[in-house]
């Protein structure tokens, strides 16, 4: 069976763990437990065994550890719709991913869409246009599951397309 690795990157508290939990276990916890180090989950997506790396989020004092990104076939950059800084930092995360794995595809998850936010849908296209590596920008909600499945499936499709070339 085909196996590959993807990594979720983003600022701390953006909801990386919650998105993985929703996708892998179809569950959600309101309590925030920040990830320290890395935790790996496994999920089979259309005959592929996908290793999903949930890494410690970027904080003001601690950058993302590059070694965790090694060998990834794609990335999901997660930002918090309620925190502008996390959206601004998307650019830096994309840069980091491309530094470690040149040309790897990315999906952007703007998480917590179930909460009132000010980001308009037309701004999604602006984010998408900011890098040719971005294959999709989605407003997601780990809480109610909105666009979570779509997020992982879009990235899976792109990775499989790339691997079959």
């Amino acid at each position, binding site marked *: 069976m085909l*196996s*590959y*690795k993807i990594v979720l990157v983003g600022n*701390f*508290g953006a909801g990386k763990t919650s998105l993985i939990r929703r996708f892998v276990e179809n569950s959600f916890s309101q309590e*925030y*437990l*920040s*990830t*320290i*180090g*890395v*935790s*790996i989950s*496994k999920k089979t997506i259309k005959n592929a*065994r996908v*290793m999903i790396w949930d890494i*410690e*989020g970027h*904080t003001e004092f601690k950058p993302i*550890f590059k*070694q*965790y990104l*090694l*060998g*990834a*076939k794609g990335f999901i950059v997660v930002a918090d719709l*309620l*925190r502008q*800084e996390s959206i601004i930092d998307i650019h830096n995360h994309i840069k980091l991913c491309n530094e470690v794995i040149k040309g790897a595809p990315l999906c952007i998850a703007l998480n917590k869409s179930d909460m009132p936010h000010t980001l308009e849908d037309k701004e999604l296209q602006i984010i998408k246009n900011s890098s040719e590596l971005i294959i999709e920008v989605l407003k997601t909600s780990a809480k109610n599951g909105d666009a979570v499945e779509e997020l992982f499936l879009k990235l899976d499709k792109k990775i499989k397309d790339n691997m079959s070339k």
Partner: protein
Amino acid sequence: MHENLLNLLCKKNNTSYIIFNQNFIVSQVNNILIELNTDIRDFLWEIVGIEENIITLSMTQESIKIPMIFRNNSYYDLDIDTFISETGEKLYIAYMQQKSQQTYKYAKVIKEINKKTLIYETSNEKKHTTYYQQINKHMMTFHVDLDGIITTVNDTCSHFFNLEKNNIIGKHFSYFFHTQESQLNENTHIFNAKDFMGKNIFFHANIIPLTDTKDRVIENIIIIQDITYLKQIQKELDNASQYDTLTGLPNRHYFLKKVDTYIAKEFSFSLCFIDIDNFYYINEEHGSHAGDMLLKHITLLINSVIDSDDILVRIYGDFFAIIFSENKSRVYIQAIIEKLKESSLSHPLKYTADDIINLKYTSLLLDYPNDIKNTKELLTNAQKSIKKIKIDKKLTR
């Protein structure tokens, strides 16, 4: 012997290991529940994706390290290295060292900090602090004693002058700031100061007196805000109100102000009014764009013959004036007028290859104090005189 030693060392260091070959098949383990002859990737998911990095590892190279992996409620560091077995086969070893209790305490503290930070970042308190910081970035605050000596400053001030606070405190306020003429009211002033790059910055300043219990002023707090951009806008508006956008020439406001100033100072000066002939028909026949081009064309022609201290003004429409600076002789002025006549005849406007517009105009020369008394009726009278000259020109044809 070697295997026993390895097991002993791993036990001492709280480490587990898996030995596997180039096909990632497990050949030896210590205390991990993994079957021999199975694919290590079924158990050690960290390896998926980095197979190539592992295969190309050499003994002289540094091992692959992945720290702080969380699995089954515990943390470990993974280290992958290579070695040659007794039979000469290249093998790989993955060590997993359990993290110490200290690490768990550290992780707990970081989690707590992140949790509190997240609560703060989404709170109103953060929004207020951010607004305050944004405002404070643009505002300098000083305490100044009754002799004008600075006693306290904020960080913004220190950044602005690129000076340590100690190098500002103790100096007189006027050492850094210069008062502008305009005082908006008793406690509000406009100051300017040069920043550390030497750029002149304008400030709006509020002076708040601090009083003691007996209502005596003991100190002043001065809060100042950069208003350079407002000054720039004011300058641009002033400029726009005195200049013509089509030709870039000074306009009627500028003209009247200048002439008023000359009269007030009793300078003797001359004015030459110029009005393009048949401008209305040029616009009608060739279009308004051609008319605009003709206005630009005459501007260039006149500017090319006058001195740099003479001023060409577009009063309005096709009506221009040259302000000849003080003490320009009649002979000089006549020579300029003659030169302009020749230049306009030899330089018609080539609007297109087939559309050539001849430039004809009527001029009127007036002197102060002989012909001009004040600016009140100046333009009306000049226009009337030009109109009369134009009628006479037609009659004499």
